[in-house]
């Protein structure tokens, strides 16, 4: 089989082709490595490729599968990981010039789980420096430069899991690992036209992943379909003694038919004020898919009134200032590419402890009240963002003014969310639909996302940079 033809297929489909002998993991790995070095470098999506290790693991996978030892549905499938996951003895730069020489002598839990499942790590992927913990003004806030969008290289791929989004969209990996503290999986997924899952806080062990905010960081898969995300979450989820937040709740899923009469809450969105006609049209079409094809019932969803964004902002600022305290108090802070990032980290030092605790008390108060919305609705829906990717050199302070989004409550309260492609804006850039669920209800939102993708083909579109 021509390898070029399967580079943009979903990971579980690639796994099936490897298992049935239609392609080898080694051939797929070789093809992806070539694309990472050619296309990936041009997009600034790559922190580092791992050719020797990847080819060795691919050959082992091929031998195991030939011997009948199949580890998982993604055995032999090559992938990339955001460059904040520790991989033993491989440089891990966190996207930051101040951490250019950093190496860890162990593997992150997520990397280990994927290795045990037989996946092949191809590359560490580009990211915004320190996952943008201090707040950044420009897409260039990364040691690898601004990550370009595979749909239009004059636009940004999104952040902070920039390389993960661009690499999946451009057919440079079978799937990718990303992380989200506030928007870092859903934003690049929406901008790059891929499917990204932000799991419930604590679903996946954070051990070995850079800490920005201990109480808000989440790890999640970025892939081509909801089915891929479900298969990957099944592998990645589970308890880990090295991460006290890692939950022992089991994740099981079934992607069968969505039952009729599912109740979906539509989060309020101001399309008019934000000049978001394309997003409005695409979202209305998406709602029609749910109502007409799945017979879902739509209703207006209003969360109880809490300062979700302000609380999340305060918690991230303080935990980030503590997590990066050594850097902040050293001359290396000046090596960060973005002045706003440096300033934001410094400003975190001045937030009083009582203010942080106030935010954490609001969080405790809001959690049980807000989650009650899932007694009314099975899931919540909204556009992930109101516009496509902004120009790569434009100040994000400007381009974010009318971007919308619902990241604050979901991230503060640890709710899972999946972003799936739902159309394109007037400039031909992808738009995302966000489906948000109750804690530990990933199976519900992934089932909905899968059903949506059975009825639409937005997720099958391949950007110019993704065509072999």
């Amino acid at each position, binding site marked *: 089989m021509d390898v070029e033809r399967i580079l943009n297929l979903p990971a579980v489909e690639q796994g099936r082709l490897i298992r049935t002998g239609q392609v080898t993991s080694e051939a797929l790995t070789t093809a992806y490595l070539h694309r990472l070095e050619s296309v990936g470098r041009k997009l600034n999506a790559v922190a580092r490729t791992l050719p020797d290790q990847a080819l060795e693991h691919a050959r082992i996978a091929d031998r195991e599968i030939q011997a009948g030892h199949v580890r998982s549905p993604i055995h032999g499938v090559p992938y990339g990981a955001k460059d904040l996951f520790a991989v033993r003895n491989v440089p891990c730069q966190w996207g930051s010039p101040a951490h250019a020489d950093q190496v860890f002598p162990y593997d992150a839990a997520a990397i280990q789980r994927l290795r045990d499942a037989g996946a092949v790590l191809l590359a560490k992927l580009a990211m915004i420096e320190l996952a943008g913990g201090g707040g950044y003004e420009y897409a260039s806030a990364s040691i690898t430069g601004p990550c370009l969008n595979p749909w239009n290289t004059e636009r940004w791929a999104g952040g902070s899991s920039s390389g993960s989004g661009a690499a999946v969209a451009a057919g440079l990996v079978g799937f990718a690992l990303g992380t989200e503290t506030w928007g870092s999986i859903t934003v690049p997924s929406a901008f790059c036209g891929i499917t990204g899952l932000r799991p419930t806080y604590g679903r996946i062990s954070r051990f070995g992943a850079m800490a920005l905010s201990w109480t808000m960081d989440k790890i999640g898969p970025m892939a081509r379909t909801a089915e891929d995300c479900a298969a990957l979450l099944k592998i990645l989820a589970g308890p880990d003694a090295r991460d006290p937040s890692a939950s022992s709740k089991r994740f099981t899923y079934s992607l069968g038919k969505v039952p009729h009469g599912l109740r979906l809450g539509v989060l309020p969105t101001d399309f008019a004020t934000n000049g978001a006609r394309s997003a409005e049209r695409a979202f209305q079409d998406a709602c029609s898919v749910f109502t007409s094809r799945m017979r879902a019932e739509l209703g207006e969803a209003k969360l109880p009134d809490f300062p979700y964004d302000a609380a999340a902002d305060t918690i991230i600022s303080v935990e980030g200032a503590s997590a990066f305290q050594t850097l902040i108090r050293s001359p290396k802070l000046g090596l960060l590419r973005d002045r706003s990032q440096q300033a934001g980290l410094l400003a975190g*030092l001045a937030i009083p402890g009582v203010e942080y605790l*106030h935010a954490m008390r609001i969080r405790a108060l809001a959690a049980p009240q807000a989650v009650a919305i899932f007694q009314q609705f099975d899931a919540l829906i909204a556009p992930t963002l109101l516009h496509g990717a902004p120009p790569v050199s434009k100040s994000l302070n400007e381009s974010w003014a009318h971007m919308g989004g619902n990241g604050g409550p979901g991230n503060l309260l640890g709710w899972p969310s999946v972003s799936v492609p739902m159309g394109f804006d007037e400039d031909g850039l992808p738009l995302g639909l966000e489906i948000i669920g109750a804690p530990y209800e990933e199976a519900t939102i992934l089932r909905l996302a899968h059903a949506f993708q059975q009825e639409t083909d937005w997720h099958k579109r391949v950007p110019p940079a993704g065509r072999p």
Partner: protein
Amino acid sequence: MQDQVPRKMTRRDLGKAALVAASLGTLAPTGHAIPSPDAPNAAAAIIEHLLGKPMDEELRAYVQAALKDTLATWNKLNIAIPDGTEPAFVFQPVPARISKERTRGR
């Protein structure tokens, strides 16, 4: 390059920092500062104190802008919450591991 961590703060340093903090404004009943126009400047001074060195002019301007945002965020956070509301985390004491030898010895 070796990271340079500023010297440890003394009690007297903390007292000085508290004086600077007081210049941020009076305390409202909920414990939130009412920001004065000088607040970002004063907070920047605290940061310089913590760093043990002055920031360059450009960085100081960026930090003051970030602090203005921070103060705006505090205003949004300023909602009354019931006394006794615990923060969203729990401390768990680590149980001691007492060796069998030690237990037998008693």
